[in-house]
């Protein structure tokens, strides 16, 4: 998932021919959307912000210097867009929205109900993390970024991100255990 093939080549192509940007868009849309959705918690704003992230990326392609990964650069834009959004509005996180999609995933109703309960507990615990831990986990799992890319987005060292994720998961585990 991470990296992907020939991002740099696609960026070069997209600079010459904007229609080529669609390939990058298709590659990263789900990851960016999942990340943004998790951070804003509703479909409408997630769509608007996701659109603005890609439009800004398209407009700024000339500014992209091929240091680090394209994914890291793209998610840096997303990170800033989400931060702007939270400055303007109250944060909203939807738990319910996470769960309905599970209804098509196949397990029986009992397993589904248990899974749903568990995920809701995890979602709630995730909301209670400190902002930087929450952001690191969201970028890692919803944005599907490597530690290195998360470090690029958050302006931290990779070692710091690794510890951030580790401690976030430890706190999450503790919190979930308390809920049980």
């Amino acid at each position: 998932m991470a990296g992907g093939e020939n991002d740099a080549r696609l960026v070069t192509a997209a600079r010459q021919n904007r229609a080529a940007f669609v390939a990058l868009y298709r590659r990263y849309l789900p990851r960016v959307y999942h990340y943004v959705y998790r951070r804003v918690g509703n479909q409408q704003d997630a769509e608007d912000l996701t659109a603005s992230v890609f439009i800004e990326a398209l407009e700024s392609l000339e500014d992209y210097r091929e240091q680090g990964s394209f994914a890291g650069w793209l998610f840096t834009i997303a990170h800033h867009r989400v931060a702007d959004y939270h400055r303007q509005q109250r944060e909203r996180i939807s738990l319910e929205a996470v769960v309905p999609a599970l209804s098509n995933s196949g397990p029986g109703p009992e397993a589904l109900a248990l899974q749903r309960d568990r995920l809701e507990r995890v979602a709630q615990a995730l909301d209670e993390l400190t902002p930087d831990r929450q952001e690191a986990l969201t970028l890692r799992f919803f944005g599907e970024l490597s530690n290195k890319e998360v470090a690029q987005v958050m302006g931290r060292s990779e070692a710091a991100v690794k510890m951030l994720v580790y401690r976030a998961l430890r706190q999450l585990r503790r919190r979930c255990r308390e809920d049980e």
Partner: protein
Amino acid sequence: MNDELYEADELSELIDQVVLHGAETIGVESSLDEETVALIRDLRAMAQATPMREGFARELEERFLARETVPASQHVVGEAPLRRFWDQLVWSFSQHRWATAAALALLLTVTVALAAVGPQPVWADLQRLLGYVPGVGFVSLEDTRVLTAPVEVTRSGVTLRVEQVLARPDGTVIVIHSEGLPPEDQLWPHGAREDSDYQPRLRLSDGRTLVSESWTLRLGAGTLEFPSLPADVYRVTLELPRLPLVPAGAAPEAWKVPLNLRPATGELVAELFPQPYVPTDASDAHAGITMHVLEVAHGLEETALRLQVQWLDSEWEFPRIGGDQSPVLRDDLGHVYLDVIPSSSGSSVQSAVVRIPDKADDEVTPTPTPMIPTYERTLAFAPTSPSAQHLALWVDALEFEVPAEGSFTVDLGDDPQVGDYWPLDVSVAVAGFPVHIIGARLVQEPIVLPDGPGQRTVLQFDITPVPDQGDRALRGLHLESETAIFSGSGSGYNYRARIMRTSLNLREGQSIPLGSIQVRAESADMLIRGPWIITWTVPGADEATAAPVTLHPTNASQTRDGLTLRVDEVTLTDRLTAITVELDNPPPGVAFSRIPSWNPATQRRELYLEDDRGHRYELSQDVGWRPSGSPESDAKTLTFQPVQPLARRMTLHAPSVEVTLTGAAAFDVTVPTGLTTEAHPGEVSASAPWGVDIPVEVAGYQLRFTQARLEELNGTTMLMLTSGPFEGQQGDRWLTGLRMASVTAPNGQSVDLRSAFSHAGPEYEGGYGVRLAFDVVDPATGTVRPGRYHVKLDGITAAVQGPWTLAWSLRAP
């Protein structure tokens, strides 16, 4: 602190496995606790379950293309065929808007590739895929230089190995691996950081260097991508400032690995890589949809195949292979191989438009060519047995997004409020299915705010179950309103109760609209049932290779709590060990249910196989055993990893055996009228609970249901009964659930029990508890049916705690 660093690194590796590489299973060697592993899986599941509105992706894509201002002629590199290609793209937009996503995907992919690498390699890729390279995918190996063997450099006990190099006309890919790195705590001492200037290079013999364009790195491994090498270059040196993801100063640095490449001749490719083959007559057609296995490659890590799907209706889009069930691969020995995440990046979805030549010599016709919507995808399965001579790909169903027509009006009146319900009697035809909408209700869904719960309002429509039409079934309906007050539509399907729901979401900050609103069906999800069974012969399969060996051990049994569990049959293959157990002469009223993997006392997973050399075999994750060809797995047969050749004696360790015990009990429970479910942050949507007092005595267990409430589960509304604490353990027997024989609704009809379930265990508050739930939605109206329900129980399930230890010899008697 060192422990923390060590764990942090291990955790990081694990997350990379799951998130970056899509691993479904987690290595057993991980020392991380199960809770953490489960948490990682949960976070992954949450991310993957994030809903994205149908249509959003393409709408946004349209916006990008609308922003395109460069004249079309500048996109094309001059050749007439390419111009036609671009013209076709423009034609596609203008004539069909988004004619088919399938067509567009290929057109855009080709456009991108043309801009990047020119036309010829692209056509070559599309027309001929000549090799399967694990870690890279199905690729053209024409005009490619490769490494004939991995190259290793070892310094201070650390080894960097270049596994493979593919120097292709459109770029160079290098797969690297490292071993012997210092322990994690030494690698990441406090304050260590990796600089962001990681810049792998390829140095040519004349001193020129190529800089890596992109890379995918894991600790100890990575894939590096460089521009294409000049045509005459066969000797290069890979220069790495550091090993992947290793901080400065922690391990040897400034690595240089000389690499000698050779042209990838047919002979060399055959020697180095799994050779793809084109199976003969590997296609199956059903319901106007043809599936064709174009190419197959058998690797050590996976069996990959390229599947093509073609259908007739160009308005059907976004095929989802498998529908509710993932496709599986079966062989003639009895193995069932489950799909796995491919190691390669060549698994990306491609879609194409295929021209139908109307002349034998395939001349290009001047008129627009007819097109067949075509979709191609690389599927990967667990590696197949070398002994298999015939393979069959089973695809149970396909799901398409299809256009929907029909509109209706809902009059919300002049003072609509959340909780209001408007009876409707609207019939619309959706993709040929009669859809009967019987009501609309305004409900609120939860939104959690940092300072407390919030709400989102949706207009939810109740739909009566839509009957299937032959092999077609409606799975979802997506609505649209002309008023901008609503934004997007949600749709869910309970595939057991066959109830579909759909809703319009009120846009954030908008107030509930007054009066009539026009609602239009936008699209529907349609399932086409198969199965498509595509069979082929594996070329060169060796008939003399090991066939499965079946044993019937004697004396491999154990008796506990009046039950005798016996190993009836053991089958050894090169891919798995299948063990079939039997319950010998169970007492009257007792029957085998399954072998749970968990211990009811400790709740730990303790089911495994062990040999006399102390080697432990875990349950097989990706290969099943169904020699009878039955689609369902047999609860009596457990499959483990294949037994090692030197093993002479095996022991099955089972923490418990679940049995059913007959018994009889019955009770009534009343669902009050006027109940509504409400969303509660962090919980399932549910009604307010009400107290009940329902004693139940069945199969020797005494319990009492004390609480009831309605819960929204799996797309329907269920009555959930919860017991008070009771003694769920009797000796070695632990109650695991109640068995419902029947539930009679207030109108005398039988309730469909496919959604019903019961679960007992020690995890509930206050000790051991049991829950029992069944569907209370009237299938005729789609609404909750209040009144008295009569529940009949015919027994229980109970786990008989072990340890169960069954041993047998592998030697011939």
